[in-house]
């Protein structure tokens, strides 16, 4: 029995010992593992320490140096201040724009957009740089984002779009409508409202929408448009307000001209304000003062126009007024003989056949004798002789006028016209005279009309139609243009059109006769 008990006891003890051993192993295995690893590491380190060679470390130094440098650069690059980088690009872009290096500017601006996504001002600058560089597709792409037609996004971009549309020639209704909507978007965004009001005011003024022009010009803080506002008031039937605005404009320009004596444009505006207020002597004084400071043709021309305006304001009922009128026109001719308005008024004066007619004639002849404005004087006298059916004298005067003023478009035009209306007509010479004139003024209907007539004389109806059709859009009431078109269409075999123009010509002639 004892043996059995001791046998089981021994077994139980062994099992317990085994269990305790396992338990200890489970409890202490991290310590055992750490101990083992430390020993292993120690052995490895001892092994490494015995076998290490300084020569190998020296050979590895270049790799260590490169690794160290690369790590430093990576850390330094990762910790760069983005706002500082952005401001650096901003400065560089601005400098590039200023020196008109748009390629660099575009590059810096694109990088800036990367650094500050959503910055519309930068995108706007990019569009402007692209436009200056001639990269219109990119400009359009940016502008489609910044200034869409249907909703407001970025005020300056809408203004810029409007300005571009308004500066396009010819101004189409579609472009004007679009420009208007862009300007309204700019006003909605309350960005650059002053410029938007200015542009809207000017646009409405050009379109003849006086009350709308008044509304926006009034809202504009820019006093330089005060004169336009005055005119708009006046044309809208609010004379008193117009006069008040005109006075404000005059005062403004006089102050500014005093502050900037060399700025002759201010003096021109000042004079124009005086003219608006019908203060003619004051306007003439301002311009004469301007001439003493700077003898520019534009000031002389303005002064001549000033004389013409004053002359136009005078009634022709009594001889004293007519005398005054003649004196004013003569004074204008002294200042700027090439002014076409003077030619027009003097010719009319000659045509009246009154006492001033002879006075004017004598004045022109004296001019020729004294060598003063001889070209224009010959032109006026030649034109008068032509209208008085004295073709030979007219031709002589015109030839002399052309010799004096070979680059004067009106002289060449009138001489060319005369060339096809004398016997025998000299159409080839007339064409040689008018071609350079049309080249210089491709849209002026008067010159196109002359060339159309000449081409018709030369039996070139197709070319004549091209010029005459362009001319007739502005010269709707000119019977001779319709007559020429009728003849041209007739030669081309378009009888219906020829008949229509002939009918228009006849009706216009009858109206003139009736008047």
């Amino acid at each position, binding site marked *: 029995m004892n043996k059995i008990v001791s046998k089981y006891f021994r077994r139980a003890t062994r099992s317990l010992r085994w269990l305790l051993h396992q338990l200890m192993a489970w409890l202490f295995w991290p310590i055992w593992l750490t101990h083992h690893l430390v020993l292993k590491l120690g052995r*490895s380190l001892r*092994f*490494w320490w015995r*076998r*290490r*060679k300084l020569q*190998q*470390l020296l*050979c*590895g*130094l*270049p*790799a*260590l140096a*490169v*690794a160290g440098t*690369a790590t430093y*650069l*990576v850390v*330094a*690059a*990762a910790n*760069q201040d983005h706002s500082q*980088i952005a401001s*650096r*690009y901003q400065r*560089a872009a601005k400098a590039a724009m200023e020196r008109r*290096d748009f*390629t*660099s500017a575009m*590059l*810096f601006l*694109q*990088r800036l*957009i*990367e650094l500050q996504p959503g910055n519309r001002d930068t*995108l706007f600058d*990019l569009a402007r740089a692209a436009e200056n560089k001639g990269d*219109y*597709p*990119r*400009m*359009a*792409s*940016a502008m*489609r984002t910044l200034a869409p037609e249907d909703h407001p996004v970025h005020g300056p971009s809408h203004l810029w779009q409007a300005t571009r549309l308004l500066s396009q020639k010819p101004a189409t209704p579609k472009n004007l409508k679009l420009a208007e909507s862009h300007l309204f978007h700019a006003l909605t965004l309350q960005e650059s409202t002053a410029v938007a009001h200015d542009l809207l005011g000017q646009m409405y003024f050009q379109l003849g929408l006086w009350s709308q022009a008044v509304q926006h010009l009034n809202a504009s803080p820019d006093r330089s448009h005060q004169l336009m506002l005055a005119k708009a008031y006046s044309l809208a039937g609010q004379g008193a307000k117009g006069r008040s605005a005109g006075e404000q404009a005059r005062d403004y320009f006089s102050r500014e001209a005093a502050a900037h004596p060399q700025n002759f444009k201010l003096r021109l505006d000042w004079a124009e304000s005086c003219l608006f207020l019908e203060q003619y002597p004051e306007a003439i004084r301002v311009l004469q003062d301007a001439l003493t400071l700077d003898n520019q043709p534009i000031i002389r021309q303005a002064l001549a126009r000033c004389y013409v305006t004053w002359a136009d304001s005078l009634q022709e009922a009594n001889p004293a007024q007519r005398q005054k009128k003649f004196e004013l026109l003569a004074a204008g001719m002294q200042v700027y003989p090439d002014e076409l308005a003077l030619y027009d008024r003097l010719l009319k004066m000659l045509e009246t056949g009154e006492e001033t007619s002879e006075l004017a004639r004598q004045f022109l002849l004296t001019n020729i004798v004294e060598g003063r404005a001889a070209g224009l004087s010959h032109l006026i006298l030649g034109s008068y002789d032509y209208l008085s059916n004295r073709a030979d004298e007219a031709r002589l005067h015109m030839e002399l006028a052309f010799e004096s003023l070979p680059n004067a478009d009106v002289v060449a035009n009138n001489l060319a016209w005369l060339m096809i209306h004398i016997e025998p007509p000299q159409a080839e010479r007339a064409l040689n005279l008018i071609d350079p004139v049309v080249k210089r003024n491709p849209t002026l209907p008067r010159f196109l009309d002359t060339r159309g007539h000449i081409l018709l004389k030369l039996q070139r109806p197709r070319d004549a139609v091209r010029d005459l059709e362009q001319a007739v859009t502005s010269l709707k009431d000119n019977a001779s243009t319709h007559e020429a078109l009728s003849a041209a269409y007739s030669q081309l075999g378009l009888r219906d059109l020829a008949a229509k123009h002939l009918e228009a010509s006849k009706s216009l002639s009858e109206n003139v006769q009736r008047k």
Partner: protein
Amino acid sequence: MTSRIPLLAVFFAISGYGVLAWWHLSSLLARPHYQFIVVLPFLVLALLRTRAEERQPPGNFRWAPLIVLLLTGSSLLLVLATWAWSPWIAMLSGLVTSFCVIWLLTGWDGLPRWMPAWLMCWILLPPPFGWDERLTVALRGVTTRATSSLLELFGTLHLSYMNVIQVPQKSLFIADACSGVHSLFVLLAASLFLALWFRRSALHTILLLIATVGIVLVENITRLVVIVLGLSWRMDLSIGVNHTFLGLMLFLGSAVLIASTDQLLVFFLPQHDPRAQQAHSQTGDSIAKEPPRWLQLAAATFSLAFACCGLVQWWTMPGSLPDLTQSFKSVPDLKVLGQKGMPVKLQEFSQVDYSLIQRVLGDPFGQQSQQWVYARGSLMAQISIDYPYDGMHDATECYAETGWTIDQAEILNWTGASGSEAQAPFGDETVEPLAVVRMSRALEGSVLLVFSQLDRDGVALAGFKHRSAGPRVVDAQRRLDSLVRRPPTTQKSSVRPPLLQVQMLARSAEPFTEEDVDRLLKFYVDFRQQSRRQLVDHSVSGTASQLAATRSDFVTP
């Protein structure tokens, strides 16, 4: 029987793998970053020579069933490669078979002598599924971003997007050559050779290979930073001899750094004496002195199977064997037409600018571009002749890598002559392809890209590389398919390189209308005809219709 085994091995190699291995080598040599494999035989010989003193009689042929298993696997791979015409799978099979052959020759005891050379041969197997291509793209991205950050650190103002670094003086496209993919593969092979030559441990070798990737990145970032800084000093190191010299210097620097890293690793990693280990292994009991008889019979049977595969390959080979030296032949120069080489007015467009652009060899936009700019109102067409290309080229890839999003891409088959004075090269019935792509990029808007290539016979080609926009699983499936799908090589064999690319990038301030597109396409076709007439000799009178492009013409495995 043992004495006949080398003969069998030679028979395996030549009969079973000859044709596909030739094709594999041809495709490797066509890629510039694998052309260094021409030095592989010398490396293998050098490695064998270093182990010459370890020559010992064959012995220890244990684990024979494992070899049978490997032989079975490689023979199955060869069958698959033959059926699918996959040179890559054939090369994988060949490497496995070569291991078995070496084992049959020397047993496990002989492997230490052969193993380094055998491991070195694995450089013949590029990563599958276009992973090398992905690596190239990834390297380009990392290089560009890191270069950009460094330039910011140095205060150099620039713009970087996708794989382009632009400075006011020049726009630098990070081409394959500059992305580091060329030097990466060469330097990895060099590192492997160095480790094998000096009997470095596995850990040492792996660390050295990882360090090599880092060194290559440093090399290429340095190259770009130096080029950009050079430009600001009015020194153009991006082209010509300067570029080559800079590349060579940096490559040598990288090689020195690898050697230096190796020494550093030797310093830090305790190195056991391999000879002592060898002595230890020699004390072990070597049993059999030759492979078992049944295994020799099995090997003989496999040799017959390989021979059959070799015959089938020869029979089904598409076209003739490719010319291995093709990539090393110099490309003929293309005549420079100059500004007056193209008409001042073409269709309704007027010429406004001309430039001649030189780039580095292998640049995807062509090493040389003759570029004209034509305009018509708000339409602006930049049209260029890019040269040279070895095969069909998908220009959309280049644009995608420079940040453009491809919105729509299609191949148009343009029928007949284009109009004006242009004459169709193959008569009025000619159908010629052209790739028409609409793409867009932030801040640039939408553009129209039209391109096609002309081979030496004036035959027009156009195509797109398959691009998966779907999930990665789909992409992987496509790449797996490309691995085992027989390519339509009959068309490829008809193309006579080098090709020139006629490429037009049209932009407009307004969105393109249908009339605009039609006008531009006519202009493009007319321009292509003009350039064909001046630059290509018409020596072939066939029809181009047989070369109507497909979307899968040049999928790379």
